[in-house]
């Protein structure tokens, strides 16, 4: 464009957009997190596809059935599917993606701090925070530790 203004004539406008949200956990999420608060892990079950989902869903993404049945998953039956380390203000923390045998999906959480190094395939258990500290949130699982 031959009409371009010289540099000091070009302007910018600055502003900000503050945003705030409150999310519900949903039908599956509400039940899942309330159970987590009790120290229980449950997955929803698709009987058509013979699958368990964690975190639980109210529907099967494959056959699109409504899922009304839930089943206990033992917090001791996890294994590390993948992990990564992050360094932030409060030091180094290891994030693990933990899967459970026969269950589709998995849970994100932290690996127990200490000398033990995580390994892919390592058997782990979910350790819950003390009952009075639980809020109905994924962070009610304090960490995963090697069995």
């Amino acid at each position, binding site marked *: *464009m031959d009409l371009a203004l010289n540099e000091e004539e070009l*302007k910018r406008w600055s502003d*900000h957009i503050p945003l705030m*949200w409150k999310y*519900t956990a949903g039908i599956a999420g509400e039940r899942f997190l309330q159970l987590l608060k009790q120290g229980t892990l449950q997955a929803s079950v698709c009987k058509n596809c013979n699958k368990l989902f964690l975190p639980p869903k109210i529907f099967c993404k494959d056959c699109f059935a409504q899922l009304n049945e839930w089943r206990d998953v033992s917090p001791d039956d996890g294994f590390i599917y993948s992990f990564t380390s992050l360094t932030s203000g409060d030091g180094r923390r290891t994030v693990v993606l933990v899967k459970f045998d026969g269950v589709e999906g998995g849970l994100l959480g932290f690996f127990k701090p200490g000398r033990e190094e995580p390994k892919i395939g390592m058997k782990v258990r979910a350790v819950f925070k003390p009952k009075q500290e639980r809020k*109905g949130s994924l962070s009610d699982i304090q960490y995963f530790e090697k069995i």
Partner: protein
Amino acid sequence: MSERVKFFPGREVSAEAFQSGSVLLTEYSTDLKYSWASGVAISKFLNELKNGKIVGRKCNRCDRILVPPRMFCEECFRLTDSWIYTKDTGTVNTYSIAYVGTDASRLKEPLYIAVINIDGASPGMGFLHLLNEIKSEKEIKVGMKVRAVWKEQSERTGSILDIKYFKPL
């Protein structure tokens, strides 16, 4: 309603449950900061507002003087041709009176707002601004002639707010 499906799904959360937190809620907030380049046409428009003038762009094919100015004519789909200074007077195309703010909360004082067709631009060409120095709400009319009230030159920054408001002529 369907012959095969006898009820509509969905579970309502009451306002009370939402406020009291008897249903689980996760809260997040953020403050997104932006700095937008104004582009050629709006940069010039803002610079001229600082000079106390309103500027438009002319398209030589459709002969329209466009306000707010743009470097292309959306009708002819070609570059516009020249800068044209308009007057700082105009006509109220439409107006309304705002009692609520951006977050739907009540304003202390109602705000008079209008689309003002600018004299010297083509018919129907105008922009959004505020009205003030209104004696009574009944005084405001579609078709009312108005004039820009400018900030003091030293206070102008090259902003749409360099025009404080428009007032009845």
